[in-house]
């Protein structure tokens, strides 16, 4: 089999060997229900969860009692928004502030809540995907119950000034929810320093299993349950705990915290080489996202005059996996809402490709991918009836 280049680590990551080894024990050896406290097997499972909770809490500088395990980032986002909205119903607060570039787990939840009378303000972003702190301040009203802003964007990698956002939220007495699904393991998260009240996490973006994540809920925050039932997770999230997943999540977090600085430094250097390689070898490209305030693994460009899905199909022929903001890859009519929010025209947004490097990516991989991209873009441009900006921007 020829070599594969997996460059879609923002979609998901390979589960690390150490994580799998840790998880396996909880299938046929330590399979007790953590709620069964009267016998050894149950107690062992409970201990494993307690231990995992401590690891995750330490990673974000929270208290163990503030960590709740969920089925992933989407559930955590849903819980934060619906939980706060429902806890505030009939209390005179019905306003949420978020941004135009959130993940659909946030945006579609806001749309849903609007059916129940919730009002949402969607903050703009600049061409780099950054929000404007002044616009945020101006959007806050006495009715505002929650600000929900992602730490780092999954498509363009832009990192928001969360600490400053946290200060604004605190000053105005408004809760702050942060979707940190992409930021985990890439950016230092400190819920105390950054004044975060609720934080969404997911395991599968940092070498953990899919279908497990967590939520940090600051002590004292009023939030309704999303999943009702048994008394698990201190009565806040029902359902027999996925012990093996929780243990896997914690192991991934533990590994990420161990060589955090070296890992970020290595990826950042590779990413910069990748960005330079594309810029220096392919004309008429636009870097999407912020030049420096960006995730260490994210390389997102628009290649003018060509369309993203065609690029992905040709990349796949060379064993390269990436993703695109083109409508043709999502089955929707419009290209990525994130790219449009940064002001890209539709035509240019259709030609965007996101590479997200990972632990296994090498410098040689990057040189190969840059050269492959150069060939693909040249080939598709030769086929394209759009030859210049005039053709592209023509209405």
């Amino acid at each position, binding site marked *: 089999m020829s070599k594969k280049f997996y460059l879609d680590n923002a979609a998901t990551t390979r589960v690390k060997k150490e994580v799998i080894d840790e998880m396996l024990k909880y299938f046929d050896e330590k399979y007790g229900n953590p709620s069964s406290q009267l016998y050894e097997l149950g107690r062992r499972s409970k201990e494993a969860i307690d231990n995992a909770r401590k690891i995750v809490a330490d990673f974000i500088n929270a208290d163990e009692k503030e960590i709740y395990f969920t089925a992933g980032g989407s559930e955590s986002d849903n819980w934060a928004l619906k939980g706060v909205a429902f806890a505030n119903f009939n209390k005179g607060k019905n306003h949420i502030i978020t941004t135009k570039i959130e993940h659909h787990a946030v945006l579609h939840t806001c749309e849903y809540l609007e059916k129940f009378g919730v009002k949402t303000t969607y903050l703009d972003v600049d061409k780099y995907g950054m929000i404007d702190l002044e616009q945020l301040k101006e959007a806050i009203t006495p009715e505002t119950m929650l600000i929900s802003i992602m730490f780092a964007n999954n498509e363009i990698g832009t990192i928001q000034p969360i600490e400053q956002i946290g200060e604004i939220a605190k000053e105005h007495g408004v809760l702050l929810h942060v979707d940190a699904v992409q930021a985990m393991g890439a950016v230092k998260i400190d819920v105390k320093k950054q004044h975060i009240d609720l934080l969404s996490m997911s395991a599968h973006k940092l070498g953990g299993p899919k279908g497990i994540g967590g939520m940090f809920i600051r002590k004292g925050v009023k939030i309704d349950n999303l999943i009702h039932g048994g008394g698990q997770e201190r009565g806040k999230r029902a359902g027999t705990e996925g012990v093996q997943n929780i243990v896997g999540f914690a192991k991934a977090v533990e590994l990420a915290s161990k060589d955090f600085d070296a890992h970020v430094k290595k990826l950042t250097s590779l990413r910069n080489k990748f960005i330079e390689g594309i810029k220096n070898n392919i004309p008429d490209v636009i870097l999407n996202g912020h030049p420096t305030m960006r995730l260490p693994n994210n390389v997102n460009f628009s290649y003018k005059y060509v369309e993203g899905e065609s690029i992905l199909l040709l990349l796949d022929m060379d064993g390269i996996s990436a993703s695109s903001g083109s409508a043709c890859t999502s089955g929707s009519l*419009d290209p990525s809402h994130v790219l449009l929010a940064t002001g890209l025209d539709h035509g240019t947004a259709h030609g965007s490709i996101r590479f997200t490097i990972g632990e296994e990516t090498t410098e040689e991989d990057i040189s190969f991918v840059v050269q492959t991209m150069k060939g693909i873009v040249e080939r598709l441009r030769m086929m394209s009836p759009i030859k210049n900006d005039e053709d592209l921007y023509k209405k």
Partner: protein
Amino acid sequence: MYTEAVMDHFRNPRNVGSMENADGVGQVGNPKCGDIMKIYLKINDETIEDVKFETFGCGSAIASSSMATELIKGKSINEAVELTNKAVVEALGGLPPVKVHCSVLAEQAVKSALFDYAQKTGKVIKGLENYEPIDDDDIHCH
């Protein structure tokens, strides 16, 4: 996701390129929607002697244009005007439902090029008497 035939026409598109002094040129679609097809015809004695295409779009858009050019090459203009998107889809062994619009665009591109030829030569092509070139501003994506 795509059939063998679609992938074949995507990887090795037939008749790709532009044409100087074409007898008919048609372009449909716009960058907003993510697909543009341009078709060039060389017509002699009411027969399509040569055809070329240029396409901006996804894999199925490129494959649909390539297949459409194959289906009309060597045909008379009266045969070519009867090309349907269904014929393109069938020849490709099927398209995913969300991509069927690509075949519609290919049919429109052929009609638009034939209409251009009719306009330039003053000929009347059966089936194109009431043809209205699509106004780009009116195009709703997909």
